[in-house]
Structures are given as C-alpha cells and as structure tokens.
C-alpha cells in the first residue's frame, strides 16, 4: 500500500514531475520556447547555408571542425547560435524561475504541500531540478537535432572531439541558464509579488546586456592610455578592461563558449608577439581549451551555486503562514 519510507526520493520525484508538467503546460514557457526555437533554427539555417557555399580557407585551423562552426558561423544577416543563446538564455531562465516560490505562496499551495510528510527543501530542490531538466532536455535536443540535420546535409558524421566539445558546450549553456534560473528563484523567495521578482530579474538582465557595456565604454574612455604609452601600460589597460567585462555573466559564458567551439583560440586576453612566435597554428586539445577558460567556467558555476544557496537559506527560514 504505502511505498516504504526509505524511498524518500519518491516524494521528490513526484514533485519534480509536477514541476516539469507545470512548465510544459504553461503559456509563458510555450511562448518563450517558440521564440527560442524560431531564432535558433533560423541562425542554424543561415550558418549551414553560409558554410555550404564558402569553402574553408586553407590556413583556417578550425576547418576540421565543421560541426562546431555551425554554432558559431553567421552570414551576417543573423547572429550565430551561441550569441542568440547568450542573449535569450537568461530570459528562459528568468521565465522558469521568477514565480517559482511566491506564486505558490500567494496561491496558498505552499502550505498544503509543506504540510505533507516531505522535507522542506524538497520543494525548492524539486523546483530547481524540474526547471533544469526542462532546460537541459531543450538544449540537448536542439543541438542533437542540428547535428543530425547537418549530418544529413553534408554526409559525414561529427568526430569524437567535436562531440566532446559540443557536449561540454551544452553543459555550459545549461549552467549559464541555471544561473539566471537561480537568480530569479532567489527573487521569488524574497519578494512576495511575482511581478516584483520578474521585474527585478529582468532589470538585472537588462543592466548586463544593455547598460553594462555602455558603462564599460565610459570607463574605457576615461582610463585609456596615451597611444604612445609603453607596452606594459597598454597590456595593463587591456587586462583591466577584460576584468571589468567579466563581471557580466554573459561575458563569462561567451568566453567559455568561444573556447569550446573554436579550438584554435589560445588565449582570451592580449598576447605578446614573442608569446606567439614559434606557435603552430593548430587547434588545442579539449582539455587545453578548458584550461584557458577555466576560471570563467568556475566563476559561472560558483555564481549559480551562490544564488541557489541564498535562495535555499531564505526559503528554509521563511515563515510559511500567509
């Protein structure tokens, strides 16, 4: 009759299933899904067209990685896939998370769920796992479908290295969206109204996509060294600007994806001429590419975890009475 008490994951799996069902049935998700699918399909289509018509130049070291190029190439009419994801991904994350807790609180379903014999954190964990499952399956299927279509079009399968890199790219994308998901979930725990949490999350996203680059430009103008300044000074300036830019999560993500999808990139910062001397223009192995963007990826994961920990902390201390 009753499933054994040891099997505590049963209740969690029920909650996760409920979350996934809720997301898939909700209009906001369907609309956003349509937008993402349309833009991504369009950008992938244009890049496939562009790749089909232009033969790779002989000195292009990325030429061997056809399947990676699909996600980064564009013919100029549309941004490439990874730029689109960098732009729309946050919106998807916010959409899945902004009303996670406060809508249940306002609908008074939170008290009902928590008065069942489940641990309190199951509720939040299920919210997170459910949304993450939706995001993960969405991007995994999108990328797999693209690879499948491209294989049909060009007639050869992706290599193992490409598969590895694409797998990591999917993982990084999920982590990036999970960051925004957790941020908006944190707001949904803190703010009572769903409108407040949605607006605050979108404001932060807007800040980093629109205003942060403007601020950086202003700072850049202010601290720009004299054109005749010493090399060391210019290097210092470049490093400073890069550091500033990397406060934006989208910059971390694009650094990471660039490294993963363009194996020939050797550094994300400025390089000395002597550092390049004698270098063979060949692609890096996967592990070496990861090492170049290691700190960016770790920072992104850390931000995600910090946001989740904060929402966990606030949720566990929340008074659930209305």
């Amino acid at each position: 009759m009753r499933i054994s008490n040891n099997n505590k994951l049963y209740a969690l799996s029920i909650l996760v299933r409920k979350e996934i069902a809720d997301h898939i049935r909700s209009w906001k998700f369907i609309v956003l899904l349509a937008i993402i699918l349309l833009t991504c399909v369009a950008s992938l289509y244009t890049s496939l067209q562009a790749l089909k018509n232009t033969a790779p130049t002989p000195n292009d070291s990325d030429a061997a990685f056809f399947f990676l190029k699909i996600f980064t190439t564009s013919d100029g009419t549309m941004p490439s896939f990874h730029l689109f994801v960098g732009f729309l991904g946050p919106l998807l994350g916010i959409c899945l998370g902004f009303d996670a807790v406060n809508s249940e609180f306002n609908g008074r379903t939170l008290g009902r769920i928590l008065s069942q014999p489940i641990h309190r954190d199951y509720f939040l964990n299920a919210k997170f796992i459910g949304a993450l499952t939706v995001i993960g399956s969405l991007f995994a299927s999108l990328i797999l479908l693209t690879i499948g279509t491209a294989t049909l079009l060009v007639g050869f399968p992706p290599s193992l290295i490409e598969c590895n890199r694409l797998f990591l790219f999917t993982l990084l994308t999920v982590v990036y969206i999970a960051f925004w998901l957790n941020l908006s979930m944190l707001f949904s725990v803190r703010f009572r109204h769903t409108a407040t949490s949605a607006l605050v999350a979108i404001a932060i996203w807007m800040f980093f996509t629109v205003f942060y680059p403007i601020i950086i430009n202003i700072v850049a103008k202010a601290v720009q060294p004299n054109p005749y300044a010493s090399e060391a000074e210019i290097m210092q300036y470049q490093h400073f600007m890069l550091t500033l830019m990397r406060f934006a999560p989208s910059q971390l993500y694009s650094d990471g994806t660039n490294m993963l999808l363009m194996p020939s990139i050797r550094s994300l910062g400025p390089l000395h001429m002597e550092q390049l001397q004698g270098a063979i223009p060949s692609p890096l192995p996967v592990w070496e590419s990861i090492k170049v963007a290691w700190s960016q990826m770790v920072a992104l994961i850390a931000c995600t975890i910090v946001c989740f920990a904060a929402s966990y902390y606030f949720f566990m201390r929340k008074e659930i009475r209305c």
Partner: protein
Amino acid sequence: MEGDKMDNPIICVRQLTKKYGDFTAVDHLDLEIATGEIFGLLGPNGAGKSTTILMLLGLSEPTSGEIEVCGTDPVRSPLAVKRLVGYLPDNIGFYEGWTALENLILTAQLNGISYTDAKQRALSLLEKVGLQDVVEKKVGKFSRGMRQRLGLADSLIKEPKVLILDEPTLGLDPMGVKDFTSLIVRLSREEKLTVLLSSHQLYQVQQICDRVGLFIKGKLVADGPIQDLALRLFQDKTRHIQLKVHQTDIQRTRDILENMQAVKAIKQKDDMFQINADDMIVHQLAKMLVEQDITIAQLQQRTYGIEDIYAHYFEGGSTYEDK
C-alpha cells in the same frame, strides 16, 4: 486550567511560546486533547490560533515550550507528525489548472502512496465529501464550498489520526456551514479521528465540539465543555430574565416585581421588563404571576452561551483593540 488529568492525550502542549520579534503570538500555552474528541479552539482573529496549529504541525518553530503530537515531537521529527496529522489550512490553495482528482492524487503521492492506490482512495474520498460529479473538473472553477469539501478530502487522504482544521467554516454560507460541520462530525466519527478545529465563528463550533478552549491574545483563558464553561464562569453572576405581559397588566406586574426580594433591578419599556435577579426565580415568578391572573406573553431566563463567555473575556481584556 482544568485539574483533571487525561488518560491518553493525543496532543499535549506545555508552556508553548512563540514570539515574532517583540510580539508574543502564543504565550505559555498549556493544552491537552484526548484521543477521539472534537476540540474547538476559539478566539478572535490574531489570537494566535493559526500560529499554534502551525507549531503543532512542525511548520513553525516554537520559541520555547514542549509539544507532543501522537507521542512525537513535531520540532524534532516533523515528518512523523505530518504523516499522522491531516491539516486543512484556512483558505486552502489548490493548483487551479488541475482537476480535483489530480490535486488529491498529488497529495496522496507525497504521502508515499502509489498512483493506483492514490487514485482509488481519492475517488472514494471525493464521493464521501459529495464531489463525485466534479472529479474531472478543474479546481479553478470550484465554488468556495466545493473547495472546502475538497480540502477536507485532501486532509483525509493520508488516513490521519488527527485532523486539524483552521477556520474550516470561514466564507461559507449558513447552509454550507451546516453541511460542512455535519460532514466533519460524520467523517471524524467514521474514521475515529481526533479533530482540532479553530474558529472565531461561535455558534457553528458550539454545536459540534465536545470541548472548547478559549484563546485570547496568545493565552488559553478557559477550556472545557461549553456548558461547564458557562456554569463555572457565571455562577456568581446575576440572572437576566425577560418578561412580557399584556398591556393591561403592566402596573400590577411592576408591583409584584418590586416586592420580590431576589429582584435587584428592573428595566421597563412599555410591556417589556428586563429583570436582574440573584437566584433562579423564574419558576417562582411564573407561579406568582399566574396566581395574580396576569397574562404572560413571554417569560424567559437568558441562558449563557458561548457568546457570553466570549464577550466576558473580550470585555475583561479591555486592551483588545478590535473591540
């Protein structure tokens, strides 16, 4: 507090206190509820009823004091308590886009019941609460009364030992209240449940409770069966008698009343007399009036109900701001 000890209290609360900052919501509460009884927790809004209930369920942490529900401490092991206690919050929320059946199945599954069993149990409960015709209807389209019934089914689906109802009759029309309270009584007798219900609506609760506790400003000021409570509280008080006689007999009645020793005060308005007396004099008074051939239109000694008890404490606690 009552002196007699219970044999087997299923809920036992000792010196329970809950503070929100400086505000004391529950103040050194002592309470015992016996197995199988229907206990009414009465008090005005903001008296701390809901807070007490949340602490009984382990959903809120007490500042100090001890709680035992079904032999378990809800602070230490909330899961064990929540497995045995069904809870119907005031203004219960359901997933509006889901059907009644889906909502119940979710609750059942969270209690570790497999899908097929959950469905079976949900269907039989929906029939018991009279919702068998709207099983596949979305809860968003339910009326207030239907929601409360569904809420009752929802709290019963785990087959609890104790049922805690927070303001179960709030927002229901008089017929709905009657139906719902009788449903609670019937189901609790059928399932041999202990019921703890909180309310500020006196009459409805008065009718179904074995025992009530009066809760004001975080304190339990009195508890016991309602009749006992009235007797104990008002034994020293004067009795109020209302008398109405025929127009022609007014003056004669007045003379009789003024001659009676037990009568302390008389208020007269046309043919209506409001009499305050020391003892139970209704019988005596009636006899005298009949002997004098006075036509009695109405003779009534006011009995003390729960409302008087309530008013007594409200007036006693003059700092209470809603009054």
